[in-house]
């Protein structure tokens, strides 16, 4: 009975799928889907190296500090970094006094309450504050950016395929629309207020090119601030904001792997030891069983050992 019902149910499902399959293919061949400009001209992130790449990846604190400088002088005009507190900057090598100064000098004030009247007020940020966002809310952010919302950058390298490689590619990928694209897709002309960037999913990004000229930021450590260098540095910094745990995680991972490797090898030999008698075809008994003692005696006698 179960099999008869099952047989029918199976054939019904397969039949409905066959109908769907035929309909699907028929519509595919009668009206094949039109190719999109984004299918052909979208590029995967550029292949650049970051020190944080790979299982032994580490941060370069000098680069992270340069990246933080690019963020605070360029990106932070529009983008927030809501999950990062000033005190977290200790992780990229600033000391307490420097952090206090960075916080109190920050161009946006932290929200507060007037202690006398209880009315909303602002105050200088403290190291314990998260980095204040450039816009108080989404409406204000959109109003200032042609109705586009600049995303929070705290987790951006984990929230995009390609991570820092994607961020670097976007920052250095602005260009004029290729003639081949306009020739093949005349309707795909980049609309006003958008900017052509083949590394962006739909090719047209609302963000204007943020890094335009070499020397836009003045590095204190003497590194030459080319557009390429600034893009690399800020992408590296954004790896840190998304994964401040990265270095500790890699170090702990190595220790855990070594520990488990030793544990696995020891446990394997223990297993071999225990299973030895089974593989040897001996009955499962201890060495003090009369049967095994007799075997031992026989073996010793044969080898000429006393006792």
């Amino acid at each position, binding site marked *: 009975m179960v*099999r008869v019902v099952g047989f029918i149910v199976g054939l019904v499902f397969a039949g*409905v799928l066959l109908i769907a399959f035929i309909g699907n293919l028929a519509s595919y061949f009668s009206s094949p889907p039109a190719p999109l400009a984004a299918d052909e001209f979208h590029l995967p992130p550029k292949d650049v190296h970051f020190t944080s790449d790979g299982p032994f990846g580490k941060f370069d604190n000098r680069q992270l500090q340069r990246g933080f400088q690019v963020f605070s002088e360029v990106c932070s005009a529009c983008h927030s970094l809501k999950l990062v507190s000033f005190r977290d900057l200790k992780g990229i090598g600033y000391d307490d006094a420097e952090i206090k100064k960075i916080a109190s000098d920050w161009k946006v004030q932290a929200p507060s309450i007037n202690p006398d009247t209880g009315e909303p007020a602002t105050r200088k940020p403290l190291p314990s504050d998260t980095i204040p966002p450039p816009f108080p809310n989404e409406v204000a952010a959109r109003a200032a950016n042609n109705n586009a919302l600049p995303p929070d950058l705290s987790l951006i390298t984990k929230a995009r395929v390609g991570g820092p490689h994607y961020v670097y590619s976007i920052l250095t990928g602005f260009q004029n629309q290729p003639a081949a694209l306009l020739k093949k897709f005349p309707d795909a002309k980049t609309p006003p207020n958008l900017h052509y960037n083949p590394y962006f999913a739909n090719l047209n990004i609302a963000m204007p090119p943020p890094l335009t000229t070499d020397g836009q930021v003045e590095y204190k450590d003497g590194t030459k601030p080319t557009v390429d260098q600034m893009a690399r540095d800020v992408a590296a910094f954004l790896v840190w904001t998304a994964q401040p745990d990265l270095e500790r*995680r890699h170090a702990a991972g190595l220790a855990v*792997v070594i520990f488990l490797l030793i544990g696995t090898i020891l446990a394997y030999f223990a*297993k071999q030891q225990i299973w030895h008698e089974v593989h040897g075809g001996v009955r499962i008994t201890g060495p003090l069983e009369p049967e095994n003692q007799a075997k031992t005696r026989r073996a010793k006698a044969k080898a000429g050992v006393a006792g």
Partner: protein
Amino acid sequence: MSFSWAKPYEPKHPVMRWLDERLPLPRVIYGAIGGGYPVPRNLNYWWNFGVLAGIFLTIQILTGIVLAMHYTASTTDAFNSVNQLIMRDVNAGWLLRYAHMNGASFFFLVVYIHMFRGLYYGSYKAPRELVWMLGLVIYLLMMATAFMGYVLPWGQMSYWGAQVITNFFSAIPVVGDPLRVWVLGGYAPDQAALTRFFSLHYLLPFVIAGVVILHIWSLHIPGSGNPTGVDVKDERDTLPFHPFYTAKDGWFAAAFLLFYAIVTYFLPNYLGNPDNYIPANNLATPAEIVPEWYLLPFYAILRSFTADFILPAKLWGVVAMFSSILLLFFLPWLDKSAVRSGAYRPVFKRFFWLLVVDVIVLGWVGGSPVKPLTVAVGQVAAAYYFLHFLVILPLISRFETPLPLPSSITESVLDHREAESLPPSAARRRTKAATAAAE
């Protein structure tokens, strides 16, 4: 327990004797995972995954309890409580969270291997039907738990995943929409849904642990199966669970945890979706809504039903998706072959591997963007899935001639060892002769 030669528990320490006389808990443990549980001596490494599943359930419960101490089930704070508080400020919070996230994936990986082992070696057949069915109950509970856990960080994929899954209810005729509103506590996933998902996500793992006890209990009545599928005949066919299988499970668990540690520490986000690091936004639908990898085959089945045939396509999809799991409950009666092990079933074996490939293809289709040709591949694969269990398997069990079975487990072990000790050329001749004889 099951076999007359199973060693009874003999307390060695007076305290244990005192305890055993009043509450025979040590006796139960000794009989379940100690020297009192005789296990066939010929188990291969595919039999290690049941213990591993228990280990991953434990890891999930332990990491989950600590994570729940820091998590806030609120639509405004959930994302930050995970991505700011737990990942940045809680001591080793990043480790707890990554271990829990990847622990779910590894739990499913282990359970899938465990289930396919059962499918290949006929572990679902009499007298172990209930073991199989209780296992399926665990699997269904796992899927519900994993889905609700994925909603908790309240990222984009959490939100839209909840939106898609709870939409299944609205496919039910007449009561569908009110039912969905009742389940969600609103018209879309919101605070009410998040709080109840959190509550259930905390509850269900303990229900799973309870069903695991029933699963093991029902296994220990007939005893474990084995790769030959031949019943245990006498004491020579078995070894006590402890120390033999504790040792074998022990080293293999350490090796598997090594694999888990490598992913957790070095590729923690590899199995996740980047979109879940974007806070939930009910106004911005992600380009592709995809579940976690372990649910992809079922997602592909759901999306394969694109034609309205008597019933609306959406209802077909939901019914088929649930049927694809529920039909496994009937497997013990669909496959009537008296031979358990796939090793002695030449036709069954080919279709089994076809099923493995089919499920992988379904997973690939489930994770790919919806395009007519990928959907077409998914439709063929989904049809095969149903035909395999409901049509092909019953037919095979009727017409297939199985290979001769060894007369006992011990004989199969000795045969194997004898072949190993022969010189390679002789062994090859032997195998050839055996195959020829079988055909």
